[in-house]
């Protein structure tokens, strides 16, 4: 019987093609907007997740100051925290740990031709060599110009200088440089390398290392050497930890966080899951908000359906009377009209989904080109099914009032209607 009702409803829709199409357009514009926005949002989320995964790897977690990561704060310079790197390395499940700390040091360059050396304050960054060897994808590539080298594990009084520093100090590879720290200590460092001029920062797409990567106005020395100048690390910016194979990264991260906190470090351990969750919440909030705005156009589409259905009921008053006179129940009439309006919603939904996905593909390629990433286009079956069901019910809902009016028409009045 329901199938016959579908046919009856479809007849009536196709009978007044023009008006039906106009009604459908009203729905389809709204659906297009909603589908496009949601699908772009999903694509964005998926893309970011993939980028994060590429940079991060699933066996890695970060340790940051507890205020740095979280909903209250995004971007900006990270807060510094205290860290006992050796202790962290001793925690069960930790395979490699590398950290970065930063201070401003008083620097004395090598003596120039006139015997006078350039002096000044410059940022000094203590860097675990593992940061480069193990976490290159995260930290960015650290490359030195020809003639120099990077420092490795176990080295102490060696330094790599940024391009700008070399220029200001008139130094070159092999020269000696003096750094003064807080502890009245003054140490001489051998310059072993000069940073290669960085290419365009964004070009490698590793946007996640932003700000943490090599900087040309900084002096890099081994992480542990910093202790000799400034004492135990209280100025760590970030720590990266790789877990042993087979260990649950979230578990190890949890353990590390608790152990470090117990020692007074105000840190939080951030895993891949934490980051993607945060990004997920962010992007879905944004896309829900945008889709909500687009939903207003759906409302307009719904009102359009309602209007058309009222006209349809009015036009077919006599027909309704006839159907009832030959034995239609009120519920039959109601169903037929609900199906009719639902079908208009559904057709709008089908067209809208197609256009919406198309629009999202086009928009994604534009956005992708603009930000120089390959945006993933998401045509999720769930989204499509929900949209189609939703558009049918939107139509049916909009038709509810007119359909009820049709169903309640007294037979005789309907038959007498001219």
């Amino acid at each position, binding site marked *: *019987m329901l199938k*016959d*009702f579908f046919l*009856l409803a479809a*007849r*009536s829709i196709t*009978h007044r093609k023009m008006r039906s199409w106009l009604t459908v357009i009203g729905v389809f514009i709204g659906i297009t907007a909603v589908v496009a926005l949601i699908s772009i949002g999903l694509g964005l989320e998926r893309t970011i997740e993939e980028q994060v995964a590429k940079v991060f790897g699933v066996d890695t977690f970060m340790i940051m100051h507890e205020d740095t990561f979280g909903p209250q704060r995004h971007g900006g310079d990270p807060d510094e925290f205290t860290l006992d790197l050796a202790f962290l390395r001793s925690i069960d499940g930790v395979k490699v740990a590398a950290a970065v700390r930063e201070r401003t040091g008083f620097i004395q360059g090598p003596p120039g031709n006139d015997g006078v050396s350039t002096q000044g304050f410059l940022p000094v960054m203590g860097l675990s060599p593992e940061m480069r060897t193990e976490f290159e994808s995260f930290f960015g590539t650290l490359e030195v110009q020809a003639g120099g080298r990077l420092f490795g594990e176990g080295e102490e009084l060696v330094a790599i200088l940024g391009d700008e520093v070399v220029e200001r100090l008139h130094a070159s590879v092999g020269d000696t440089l003096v750094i003064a720290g807080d502890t009245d200590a003054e140490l001489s460092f051998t310059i072993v390398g000069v940073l290669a001029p960085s290419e365009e920062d964004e070009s490698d797409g590793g946007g996640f290392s932003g700000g943490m990567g090599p900087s040309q106005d900084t002096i890099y020395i081994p992480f542990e050497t910093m202790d000799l100048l400034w004492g135990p690390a209280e100025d760590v910016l970030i720590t990266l930890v790789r877990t042993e194979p087979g260990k649950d990264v979230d578990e190890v991260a949890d353990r590390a966080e608790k152990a470090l906190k117990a020692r007074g470090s105000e840190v939080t351990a951030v895993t891949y899951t934490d980051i993607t969750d945060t990004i997920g919440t962010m992007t879905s909030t944004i896309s829900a908000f945008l889709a909500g705005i687009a939903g207003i156009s759906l409302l307009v589409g719904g009102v359009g359906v309602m209007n058309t259905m009222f006209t349809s009921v009015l036009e077919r008053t*006599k*027909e309704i*009377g*006839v*159907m*009832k*006179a*030959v*034995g*239609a*129940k*009120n519920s*039959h009439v109601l169903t037929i009209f609900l199906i009719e309006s639902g079908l208009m919603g559904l057709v709008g939904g089908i067209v809208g989904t197609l256009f919406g996905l198309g629009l999202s593909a086009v928009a994604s390629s534009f956005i992708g080109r603009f930000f120089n990433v390959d945006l993933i286009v998401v045509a999720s079956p769930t989204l499509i099914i929900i949209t189609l069901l939703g558009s049918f019910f939107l139509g049916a809902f909009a038709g509810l009032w007119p359909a009820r009016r049709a169903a309640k028409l*007294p*037979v*005789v009045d309907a*038959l007498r209607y001219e």
Partner: protein
Amino acid sequence: MPLLDLKGITKEYKLGKTIVRALRGLDLNIEEGEIIAIMGPSGSGKSTLMHILGALDTPTGGTAILDGQDLQQLKERQLVTLRGKRIGFVFQTFNLIQTLSAQQNVELPMIFQGIRKGERARRAKELLSKVGLADRVRHRPNELSGGERQRVAIARALANDPEIILADEPTGNLDSESGAPILALLKKLSTDDGRTVIIVTHDPDATAIADRIVRLRDGCVVEEVRNA
């Protein structure tokens, strides 16, 4: 016991402050298998009476008994069943659904009774050939002549094999040439199938086929004539 037994039927309509009395204490008995012509001037209440007989409307007062059942006591659901199964209505203006073919129009009452498609189609074709339209099943109403449309409407009225056929001026929109086969058809429904047929008509031809002629005026039966 008569099939239909009307006693003191009144029907009033409120139009603003004035009350229109369409029926004013109408008494009428109709026996099973009878064919009856109802006549009367315009506004005398013929259509109103037909609507009450067809369970499409309820009287304001009086009692209407169909086959022992008091129509006023019936629930809406039972009235729906009544007009779906036991009563077939034929209208002056045919009232076919324009978007449906002749066959689909005939199938419509069966759809509401939940009859399966195959059975429906078979019966619709059978009925259409019974009214002489075997070669018109796929035609839309606007592709048929007035007489053909009314024959489709009669086939539709017969869809669920009702005992009572109510025809409100079935030839009113037809010339006598196309009206005659309609009347013949209605006559056959009574004589051959034993159905009760009630026809509202101004058509002198119709009075010839009726067993009984009932005249209305101002909402009352003023004359009943039995045809010889």
